[in-house]
């Protein structure tokens, strides 16, 4: 075949979109995406069964049951996004597959965007899995629409925040074991305030601790809407740190990708 037949064409699809497509394929076709989602649906089934049983016994209000399922979904979904992003660059580096990607004309920034978006697909899959459970537990109390909307908004903000954090760790970690371990440690540290006794969470210091942490602030906001039946605008101040966390960390992850997706000592362009 003549060489000119395949002469370098001008890009038909943006590089980041090609990367997203392949990353999604690697994650969901024969990858670990389906397995993780299946494991999550088993966990959710178990929780929903226990919660539904308690509701029948009037130990748990229906709104609380929906809130609990949604909070578990947000926690697990954003954890999965964090883990996928934490493996994105350090994993490629460790498996020796990064060099071939760096040898293409696609910019490092586009590689970062593609990998970040693909990691977020795990959160959206977790949310999709939770829809029937939310619908079943919330039937009859007019909370399903509100729960799904709150889940999409808050969960997406937290997933973007954590996936971006995972990508940043992945850029700098020497191995994917380190980036995964660090990601999990930070996630546990962020969730630690939820385990504090109620008395410790009162007062200005406790309030500040919950508000500046995007995870606790986001979950608190969801609880106010679903359990306490507050309006969306009533507690908007609790959304400040999730929004800031998502925007700042996503911007940082993308900007740093442009410079640090590379081999040690590598070109930054």
């Amino acid at each position, binding site marked *: 075949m003549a060489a000119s037949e395949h002469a370098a064409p001008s890009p038909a699809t943006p590089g980041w979109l090609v990367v997203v497509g392949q990353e999604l394929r690697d994650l969901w076709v024969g990858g670990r995406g389906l397995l993780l989602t299946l494991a999550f649906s088993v966990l959710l089934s178990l929780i929903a069964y226990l919660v539904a049983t308690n509701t029948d016994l009037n130990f748990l209000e229906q709104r609380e049951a929906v809130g609990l399922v949604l909070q578990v979904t947000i926690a697990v979904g954003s954890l999965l996004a964090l883990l996928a992003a934490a493996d994105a660059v350090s994993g490629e580096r460790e498996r020796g597959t990064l060099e071939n990607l760096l040898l293409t*004309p696609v910019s490092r920034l586009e590689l970062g965007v593609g990998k970040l978006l693909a990691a977020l697909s795990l959160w959206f899959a977790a949310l999709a899995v939770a829809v029937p459970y939310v619908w079943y537990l919330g039937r009859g109390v007019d909370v399903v629409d509100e729960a799904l909307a709150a889940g999409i908004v808050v969960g997406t903000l937290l997933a973007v925040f954590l996936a971006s954090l995972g990508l940043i760790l992945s850029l700098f970690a020497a191995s994917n074991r380190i980036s995964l371990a660090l990601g999990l440690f930070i996630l546990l540290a962020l969730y630690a305030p939820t385990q504090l006794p109620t008395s410790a969470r009162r007062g200005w210091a406790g309030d500040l601790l919950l508000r500046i942490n995007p995870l606790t602030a986001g979950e608190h906001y969801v609880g106010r809407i679903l359990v306490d039946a507050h309006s969306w605008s009533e507690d908007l101040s609790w959304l400040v740190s999730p929004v800031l966390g998502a925007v700042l960390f996503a911007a940082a992850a993308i900007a740093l990708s442009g410079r640090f997706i590379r081999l040690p000592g590598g070109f930054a362009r």
Partner: protein
Amino acid sequence: MTAVEARGIAKRYRSLVAVRDLSFSVEPGEIVGVVGPNGAGKTTAIRVLTTILEPTRGTFSVAGVPAARPTEIRRLIGVLPESSGYPERQTGREFLTYHARLFGHSRPSARARADELLREVGLAERGSSLIGAYSRGMRQRLGIARALVNEPRVLFLDEPTLGLDPAGQRQILATIRRVVGERGATVLLSTHLLAEVEEICSRVLILNKGRLVADGTVAEVARRAGAPRSARLRVPSTETERAAAALSRAPVVEHAEVSGGQLGWLSLTLVEADGRAPDDLVRDALTALIDAGVPVLSFELEGARLSDAFLAMTEAG
């Protein structure tokens, strides 16, 4: 326009200097072997020229494009990295299609390109198999196909036969020779197997401890090494004395004697080349034997091969 031009390239990793003051140029269509012992800086030099590593000092251009425009360089080069990893859960076809798309091909065009390359490197039958099931030789051929996905003007192959058995090595070299012959691309082939260089390269660069210690054709480099010019030959044992006498009379032979007291084996030292090609000296020595009616059963020239030059230059360095 030169295909590759390096001017004073240096690469330092903290206190370790991997490449120092590397300057050379490669003309279009040349197949240049880059050889050197482990740690000589071959892979680092290739990574700098392929825009993967940033040089600490110096500059370069590839296919006429200066180092300041790395994205443009990447569009024009094909690279088989040393010990490259491959995504185990992708098929060979999927891997090539993905990379063709990263180089700007539309989906149908990328698929067609992948199929064409799989055929070219002899993997058409295994294109739908997962890369995880590929042998090392198949992965190397897939890597060569990947390097050709953008019809490169300059091809960098870093240890393409590393870890392969002799049959696998031969197959890879044949693939390289074929695809290069068909495309007329410029090739930089890094290897530690000197036989590969002698077999397919028109020119050789020898690196040692990060420095370029030799640059020229295989014959030139071998001659420049100034290695001892000796040979060992075998004749029928009854002809040993007559062969030794005939060789002693030949002007190109400085010294000839029975090798290790073994009848039939002779060691000889050829005179200084003095500008003459090594092949001419050998021919004259053999002609002396043939003229004397002595049949030659085997003849092995020592000290005029690339391996001798390589050892002389890298051990001295």
